[in-house]
């Protein structure tokens, strides 16, 4: 019996030793997995953005966009994320929505800015989408939906523009699965904390959206695609409970008000359209 146990330990040990030994080799580099994934993601990002851009009006004016850039910069700098890597797009659209596209494209609708009550709420949503980008959730969601082979074939010209449009719609109007949403929320809270931005307003926004969701308010895409807003607000509060942040303002009151009124005018214009 003793010998059986000893031989079992030896055999199991041999298995784990082989596994450990083989794991010392950098297979990811050897098979160029990361490089191949990055190239695919870049091509997809360009493709998706090009098509999305054709149908939506982007606000490029630095004067209008500056406060949004300031919020993004504050979060990125505090969390050692290269701001240059993030392609932030402000889109004229009354829908309350923000979403991430492959290759670090972060799309924010004017309707969303209009729905936020302060810069901290907006920072929370940007942090949440940034977390999806940084945790590679966008590619995971796409791979899960259509498979890697279809995505690769899209980058090489396969797959028509209609199917790409469908995927953009899928990315912009459906939530990630519950685990990924929670991961992004928690990461967003950590981003905010590092940037000395209070996470409570982000929870307030979610809570408010959850309330309004029941009232079936038009254009409420972000809340309706992110279900259980109230539950999310609760765990954001729970996670940030011990953080005790004073909260450093990002924008002055007047800059925020000015930004909001400009965006409000644009959104009203798109609503009329």
């Amino acid at each position, binding site marked *: *019996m003793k*010998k*059986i146990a000893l*031989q*079992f330990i*030896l*055999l199991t040990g041999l*298995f784990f030793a*082989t*596994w450990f030994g*083989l*794991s010392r*080799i*950098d*297979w*990811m580099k050897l*098979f160029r*997995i990361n490089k191949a994934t990055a190239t695919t993601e870049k091509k997809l990002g360009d493709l998706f953005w090009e098509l999305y851009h054709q149908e939506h009006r982007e606000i490029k004016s630095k004067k209008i966009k500056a406060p949004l850039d300031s919020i993004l910069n504050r979060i990125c700098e505090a969390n050692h994320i290269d701001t240059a890597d993030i392609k932030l797009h402000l889109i004229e659209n009354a829908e309350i929505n923000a979403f991430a596209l492959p290759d670090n494209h972060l799309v924010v609708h004017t309707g969303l800015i209009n729905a936020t009550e302060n810069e901290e709420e907006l920072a929370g949503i940007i942090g949440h989408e940034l977390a999806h980008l940084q945790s*590679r959730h966008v590619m*995971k969601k796409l791979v*899960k939906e259509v498979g890697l082979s279809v995505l690769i074939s899209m980058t090489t010209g396969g797959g028509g523009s209609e199917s790409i449009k469908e995927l953009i719609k899928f990315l912009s109007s459906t939530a990630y*699965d519950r*685990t*990924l949403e929670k991961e992004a929320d928690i990461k967003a809270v950590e981003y905010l904390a590092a940037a000395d931005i209070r996470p409570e307003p982000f929870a307030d926004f979610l809570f408010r959206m959850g309330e309004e969701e029941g009232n079936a308010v038009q254009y409420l895409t972000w809340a309706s695609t992110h279900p259980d807003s109230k539950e999310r607000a609760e765990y954001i509060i729970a996670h940030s409970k011990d953080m005790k942040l004073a909260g450093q303002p990002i924008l002055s009151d007047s800059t925020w008000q000015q930004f909001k009124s400009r965006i409000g005018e644009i959104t009203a214009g798109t609503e009329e359209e």
Partner: protein
Amino acid sequence: MISVQPFSYAPSEHEAEKASNSYLMSLIAVIAGLPLPIINLIATLIFYIGNRKGTYFVRWHCTQALLSQFSMLFMNSAAFWWTVSILFRNESVSNLYISYIFTVLLFNLTEFIGTIYTAIQSRKGIHVEWFFYGRLTHFICKPS
């Protein structure tokens, strides 16, 4: 790892054939159920149950074949579900995953070669014992 050992008696032609078949069962199942590791185990188990009242030589080799398949099941199932979670869930390909797959492939290949060798030898009536599995089989399977 695999050694030829003396057996308590010289098996007959018929016994040698049956013992050899127990190993061949797992090889045939490899072709049929490569993606689902449980198939190999089921095939060997059916053969084991069918021969549990056979002669000592046949029973012994059916048990050794079954036990080896049983441990492969754990290893292969982990590889199978890990792959499934990469394809359909949120897991991503990592160095640890690739090295695990190579380790499992290496062990499966060794087992595969070992099985062919043992099938050939036991067909000739030669008694072959595997490292660990041989001793474990002696512990479980006693002459009636």
